[in-house]
């Protein structure tokens, strides 16, 4: 699809900003997102092409505002719920539980 992700040749994005000192993962949630994604691919919950298609269907503004690993997180939520591996209710309930626990994360 001609999504926001299909950005080759788009003009106006400005200079490439580099940070040569950055860590591989900026936060623990990035490490976990990365690993969980690979493990669920290995478990056959979804395939890599479904995963890429999920990311390219993100709302354009969201896609541009969020980071690479946030794109992965979006596709995990999208696919796990779409495929019924987790229900929206289960997911929301777990989010609420964890929010109450707060810094126990």
């Amino acid at each position, binding site marked *: *699809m*001609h999504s926001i992700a*299909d950005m*080759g*040749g788009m003009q106006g994005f400005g200079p490439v900003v580099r940070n040569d000192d950055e860590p591989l993962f900026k936060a623990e949630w990035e490490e976990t997102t990365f690993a969980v994604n*690979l*493990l669920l*691919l*290995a*478990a056959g919950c979804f*395939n*890599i*092409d*479904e995963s*890429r*298609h999920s990311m*390219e269907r993100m709302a354009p503004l969201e896609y541009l505002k969020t980071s690479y690993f946030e794109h992965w997180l979006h596709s995990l939520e999208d696919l796990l719920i779409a495929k019924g591996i987790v229900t929206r209710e289960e997911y929301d309930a777990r989010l609420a539980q964890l929010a109450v626990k707060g810094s126990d994360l």
Partner: protein
Amino acid sequence: MLPKEMVATAIATGASTLREVDTKPCFKPGDEVRTVNDSPATHTRLPRYAAGKNGTIVACEGAHVFPDKHGHGRGECPEHLYRVRFDSAALWGSSNDGPGAVYLSLWESYLQAEE
């Protein structure tokens, strides 16, 4: 479920998309091709900038799982994959910034013979 003990092996093995198919490749290195001029709202790995453009086959990469189908749960449907060269002028016209080319890996159904 991939157990912890199998993680290192799984990463070292990877997940190749190369497959055997019964058909021979339609194209060979040196062939002139034109990419389809299509705008599917579904998953494809033909970037918009390379749709409907003229290029040259540089190499055959074997048959690979086809994302346009696989990404929609329609099975692997492997097709022959080619390395295709697009001259910068062909892609960008006079806006190209110097002698150059873009190379893409394109599945057979993205390509049509030219001349």
